[in-house]
């Protein structure tokens, strides 16, 4: 593939595309809901109650947001630690997605916690070190900082701060290792959050290995998200990509697909071991068991096989489908742990289902993310290399 006319001619920008109009609507609704949330309280916009203190703002915005932002540490680790230079072009988009993902998680938390201005408290005022949530908070805070630093070179290139950029680039390895450590810790602790409530989470989802499950599933969630997001970017931002990025893209998809298939098989294996350790086989015959099998076979084993077939046959389409499927599967798993199988013993009348406003705020957060991503990829060297810094790796 070659791309002529590399010089980007500033065409008159068309503001009235369908997607832009949709974005505008979602953001406007979000603004109204935000106003309601902070003037009338959470009760006015959510279906949360005393039995169900956590809803989709935690189940999706936090749990899925963090898991799907795992592409940052996996890609940068693959490129900088494992030395797989051919993925280099995927690192920047992945880091950006991760940074945005984490930033949005923190943004969304402002809606969910009662007193958002106290979010720094656990780190700076009163440290509840026995809490898994403290571990999550501290690591997310530190990792967000790391991601920010990892992302600055792109901004510096855009702004032309050469010296600063050089300093940060020298720190790459250190930052990457730090990022992997922090990611390991908080990805796993998100699962471990639920280990304190064995009486509320259905035995098929509760496990002493919940933190391990969350960590490993976050790895392939990250890989899948990189593929998925790459696919989306290719569809919409093709003109922003340089030759290197385009040339490496297929290799990234194949390589990541293969890696994801292995890790997912491993994940499936340890889930089965977990089932055996707790001797929960008999639950498989119940309705919950059927739902569990939907998750495990329909959304882990099936995409894993699809990935491996795709990687073997060099079939990019398969891999792309598998990536989207896996992303859905991760969302399903996080929903199951935090909402569906949580409080499973309560009567149906006491169970939680999100309100329209909650879904609205969640959509709002997602669209804020997409908009910022579009802005950054339009302005900064994310999907292409800055001409001044070519051949630097």
């Amino acid at each position: 593939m070659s791309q002529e006319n590399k010089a980007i001619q500033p065409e008159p920008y068309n503001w009235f595309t369908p997607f832009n109009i949709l974005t505008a609507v979602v953001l406007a609704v979000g603004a109204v809901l935000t106003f309601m949330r902070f003037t009338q309280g959470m009760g006015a916009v959510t279906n949360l109650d005393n039995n169900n203190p956590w809803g989709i703002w935690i189940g999706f915005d936090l749990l899925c947001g963090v898991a799907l932002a795992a592409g940052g540490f996996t890609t940068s680790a693959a490129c900088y630690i494992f030395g797989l230079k051919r993925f280099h072009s995927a690192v920047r988009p992945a880091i950006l997605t991760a940074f945005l993902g984490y930033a949005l998680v923190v943004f969304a938390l402002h809606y969910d916690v009662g007193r958002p201005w106290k979010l720094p408290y656990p780190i700076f005022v009163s440290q509840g070190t026995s809490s898994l949530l403290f571990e999550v908070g501290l690591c997310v805070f530190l990792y967000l900082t790391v991601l920010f630093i990892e992302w600055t070179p792109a901004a510096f290139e855009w702004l032309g701060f050469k010296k600063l950029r050089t300093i940060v680039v020298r720190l790459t390895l250190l930052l990457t290792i730090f990022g992997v450590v922090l990611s390991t810790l908080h990805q796993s602790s998100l699962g471990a959050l639920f280990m304190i409530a064995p009486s509320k989470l259905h035995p098929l989802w509760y496990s002493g290995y919940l933190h391990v499950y969350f960590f490993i599933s976050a790895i392939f969630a990250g890989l899948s998200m990189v593929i998925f997001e790459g696919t989306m970017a290719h569809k919409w931002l093709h003109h922003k990509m340089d030759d290197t990025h385009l040339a490496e893209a297929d290799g990234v998809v194949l390589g990541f697909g293969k890696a994801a298939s292995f890790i997912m098989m491993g994940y499936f294996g340890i889930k089965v071991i977990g089932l055996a350790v707790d001797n929960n086989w008999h639950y498989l015959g119940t309705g919950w068991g059927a739902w569990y099998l939907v998750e495990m076979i329909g959304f882990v084993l099936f995409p894993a096989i699809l990935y491996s077939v795709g990687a073997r046959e060099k079939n990019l389409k398969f891999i792309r489908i598998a990536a989207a499927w896996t992303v859905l599967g991760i969302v399903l798993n996080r929903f199951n742990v935090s909402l569906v199988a949580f409080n499973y013993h309560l009567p149906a009348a006491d169970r939680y289902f999100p309100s329209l406003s909650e879904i609205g705020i969640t959509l709002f957060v997602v669209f804020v993310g997409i908009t910022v991503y579009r802005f950054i990829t339009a302005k900064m060297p994310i999907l292409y290399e800055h001409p001044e810094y070519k051949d630097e790796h």
Partner: protein
Amino acid sequence: MSRRKFLGCLTAALGATTGVRSIAHAASNKHFEGYPDSFGVLHDSTKCIGCRQCEKACNEVNELGSPEKPFDDLKVLDTRRRTDEAAYTVVNKFEPAQPGPKSSPVFAKIQCNHCQEPACASACFVKAFKKDKTGAVIYDESLCVGCRYCMVACPFNVPAYTYNDPITPKVTKCTMCHPRILEGKLPGCVEICPKEALVFGKRKDLIKLAWKRINEKPDNYIQHVYGEHEMGGTSWLYLSGVPFDQIGMREDLGVTPAPQLTSGALAAVPIVVGLWPVLLTGVYAIAQRKDKIAKEEKDAAVKEAIDQATDEMNKQLAQLKDKMTKEQQNAVANEVKKALEEAAKKAEAEAAAADGEGGSEDAPEAGKEDK
């Protein structure tokens, strides 16, 4: 084994090693037996008549405002309730499992059980909950961020939240009347209970009292003091004449204190922090070294190829040179010859015609030169 495969397995394996369930206890490495001489309350549901006086007293002590239906309206008991932001304690009525002439409804009171090792305190990331030496689990609103993880963690589903407060929402729950205890008074509910179904005292004495009652009237009681061991023990203890799960109290909570449930995951933190950088740096070094060796090999091969090419070129050049020198020499010789011949001719011509004209010169063709 390809590198990718290896990495996949490595990740899985390492993940598994960090997840080894440790028997260490979170936040401390010994089992906390509760503060000595801490207080508790014994609720004997066989004595409870469901008069809701305790709810009323609680409401007054904590200034919770007047409820929708007055406390002497006992029809409220017909619907199952839980604690919420406006009621720190509620009494529920349970119809007997086998209705008969001799069986009457059983009443059970719900409020914070003030665990020995509270799940809420273990879960709180700003230490807004504290197990006090009196036995009360108290909550500090000024620290609370409002994440509601305490509500997720509480096995008894006790804490409630003021969801409708936009700016300063807070968690609400029974305080065991901590301020009153400090003044030497009884908790409000205990003080008012007409049947003394609630007894306040030192937890260890209450356990003895509970077993004394069970042993004195074994037919009247289930042989179990609820709260003695549940979730590591609670300050609030219960006696019942019917199985506890029939009066809305879960019997499947186990005896593990909440902090122990997450201690394994917390124990993985130092392992990861210590092990990961070392491993990853190792992996980096291996990858780098691999790259380096590959580079060296490549460089050597390139050098060899270049050397060979240079030799070849040099040979050709030498040959060319030879050829050229020869040609030059020939040319020179020719020139000389020509010159000589011309000179001879000239001389001849000059000699022959001293009055004749000179002819034009032919420049010799020069070969390419090396630089």
